[in-house]
């Protein structure tokens, strides 16, 4: 008999007051009892609308059925047919707008907590299965993967499992992409990402850090001189945007990428870190996405007294995951919605001493269907802050495009690829944020999978 409770089981969390000052993971995960109980809320309905909501079509009712029976390893096997990063996706996917939004239990009450259960199953597997996979026999074909974010890691893993000799080229000194430099420890512990990388290495994937493709080596050199038969570009969308307002180059103004990289990748939050970070008292973060929430909550954890999210649209337009917004609020982040920065004010020694803003109202819907914010006349005011973090989006880095002849891109920089991930260059594939612009982990992972299977087909039919 299904569990007919209208509410999903709460997932234990660190207390907001405590966690607002540490970098440990916020959510603590279900216990096996909580997981079984929650999974029993699934009605196993025939039309499987949740699967339709999942970008990579995980067989959700099947894995939930195993969880409901307490057969967690079996549940894991179902998920891993479609997902190579369940411990990551269970934590960072916007489930409320994907699988869970389609759940029939959500019509009257709350949907089944699919994301929390995915996370539980993956954590259970990681805790209980210490064995690393064996390296498959080589099929003698060489593939290069550029970038080690979710797209690159997934593509590399899938190909390695099929026996390809895969080399991943990563510009940074560690692999993981946004998962290590962007998303903070308190939301995605780095040990989880490290474990994924270990698995890849066990499969025989050669990860070369400190390799900037386009500088250290070009795609043409990889193919002509190094003997790679195909290349997958998963270089992400790492180029930060700025607003172009006065005062943006003052000291104390960061791009979210810089701020988060200093904290996550370079561990600037630790007292023994060699990388400096400015520990501000009052911080304004401009933007309303996951990146903005992460920056704001990180600033708080560095010891800021007041942290503002400054966003030009309203609450319901915030692009961040609902859970992150909720967590941010619980921790005391102050939301200045319908507010737009116009100028950053200069104080002593070129430091930020405030940010001038205007209030907005929502007008007619624009091309994206969202109501367009319009400035409220005479509403200027100054927000008293000593640090400003710009989290208004990123676009793909032009480095690869500019060093690869014949690689077509959109005007805004996205690499043009067909549904298999094939670009305008033969045997060169691309996927993830490098193609779509800043999107999600699951979409990047899905693109890596699709390209891996297309590369396999292409090279096997040679």
């Amino acid at each position, binding site marked *: 008999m299904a569990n007919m409770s209208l509410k999903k089981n709460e997932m234990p969390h660190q207390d907001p007051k405590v966690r607002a000052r540490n970098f440990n993971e916020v959510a603590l995960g279900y216990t096996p009892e909580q997981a079984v109980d929650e999974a029993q809320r699934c009605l196993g309905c025939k039309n499987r609308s949740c699967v339709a909501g999942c970008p990579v079509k995980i067989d959700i009712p099947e894995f939930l059925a195993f969880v409901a029976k307490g057969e967690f390893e079996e549940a894991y096997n179902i998920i891993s047919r479609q997902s190579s990063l369940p411990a990551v996706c269970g934590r960072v996917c916007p489930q409320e707008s994907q699988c869970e939004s389609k759940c029939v239990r959500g019509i009257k009450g709350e949907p089944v907590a699919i994301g929390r259960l995915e996370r539980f199953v993956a954590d259970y597997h990681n805790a209980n299965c210490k064995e690393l996979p064996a390296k498959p026999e080589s099929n003698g074909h060489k593939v290069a993967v550029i970038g080690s974010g979710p797209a690159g890691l997934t593509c590399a893993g899938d190909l390695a499992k099929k026996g390809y000799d895969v080399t991943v080229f990563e510009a940074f000194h560690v692999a993981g992409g946004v998962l290590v430099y962007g998303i903070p420890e308190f939301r995605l512990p780095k040990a989880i990402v490290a474990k994924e990388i270990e698995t890849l290495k066990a499969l025989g994937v050669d990860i070369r850090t400190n390799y*900037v493709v386009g500088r*250290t080596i070009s795609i043409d050199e990889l193919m002509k001189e190094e003997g790679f038969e195909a290349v997958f570009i998963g270089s992400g969308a790492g180029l930060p945007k700025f607003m172009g307002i006065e005062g943006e180059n003052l000291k104390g103004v960061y791009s979210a990428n810089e701020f988060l990289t200093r904290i996550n990748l370079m561990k600037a939050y630790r007292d023994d870190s060699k990388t400096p970070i400015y520990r501000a008292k009052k911080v304004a973060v401009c933007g309303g996405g996951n990146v903005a929430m992460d920056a704001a909550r990180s600033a708080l954890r560095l010891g800021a007294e007041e942290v503002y999210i400054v966003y030009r649209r309203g609450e319901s337009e915030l692009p961040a995951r609902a859970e992150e917004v909720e967590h941010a609020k619980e921790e005391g982040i102050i939301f200045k919605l319908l507010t737009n920065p116009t100028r950053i004010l200069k104080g002593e020694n070129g430091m930020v001493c405030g940010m001038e803003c205007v209030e907005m109202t929502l007008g007619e819907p624009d091309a994206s269907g969202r109501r367009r914010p319009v400035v409220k006349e005479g509403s200027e005011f100054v927000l008293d802050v000593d640090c400003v973090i710009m989290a208004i989006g990123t676009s793909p880095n032009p480095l690869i495009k500019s060093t690869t002849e014949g690689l077509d891109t959109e005007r805004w920089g996205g690499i043009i690829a067909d549904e298999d991930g094939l670009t305008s260059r033969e045997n060169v594939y691309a996927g993830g944020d490098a193609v779509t612009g800043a999107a999600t982990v699951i979409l990047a992972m899905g693109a890596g999978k699709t390209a891996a299977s297309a590369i396999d087909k292409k090279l096997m039919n040679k």
Partner: protein
Amino acid sequence: MYKIVCKESLNPTVTKMVIEAPAIAKKAQPGQFIILRVDEEGERIPLTIADYDAAKGTVTIIYQIVGGTTKLLDSKQQGEYISDFVGPLGKPTETEGRKKVAVIGGGVGCAIALPVAKKFHDIGAEVHSVVGFRNKDLVILQNEFEACSDKYIIMSDDGSAGEKGLVTDALKKLIESGEQYDEVIAIGPLIMMKFVCKLTKEYGIKTTVSMNPIMIDGTGMCGGCRLTVGGEVKFACVDGPDFDGHLVDFDEAMERGSMYKDFERHAYEETCNLLNKQVEC
């Protein structure tokens, strides 16, 4: 891990290191830089490529011990390894078509200016090098510069090496004496570059400067290295490091460069203490 194949002290605070990095050595060009991390816990710092040898697979860096990281780097010896070494980053210096140039180097900036001077010399341009140091003990790379310069002038603050005065004094004299340069390349402290540019602007001589702001990734991903050039925001690591000196907002660059001064001083002292302790035990 990247091996230190040779280490040599050039003056009391400036050291030269040759690092084994074949992939970078193969691609390096004058004006480009690398980013390194000394050890697993280290900070990422940019250093300009002072020389490279594709055949031997080595890249030479020259650094001044100014903070915790360079102090730590300097504690490494020949035969030891550093964790990370990535590059070549940034755009190479443009040298094509120049017939006569003045290369101005200030202090450790000479290490960056040398490969540029060499390159100009190699393509057959007439090279006048003007270098400035505080005093004679700090002079570096004199033989190397002399070997690739048609004129070599040393200036020092106290007159103990070459003439007493600033590089701008020497440059002004050269220009006034009728030397006509296609381009002036100035590499050194921001304040020196600022004044060289002020001077050359008066004479309408194209001037290129090499900027070295705070960096993390060196690939255009953080924006920490941003500068204002001709009213536009540029990322030094990908759009530079060379820029038209007459367009650079030096005052802003100087301000931005001081962002972590206190932290750096502290890190330097900490590293000194740590290294001293290691020596004691």
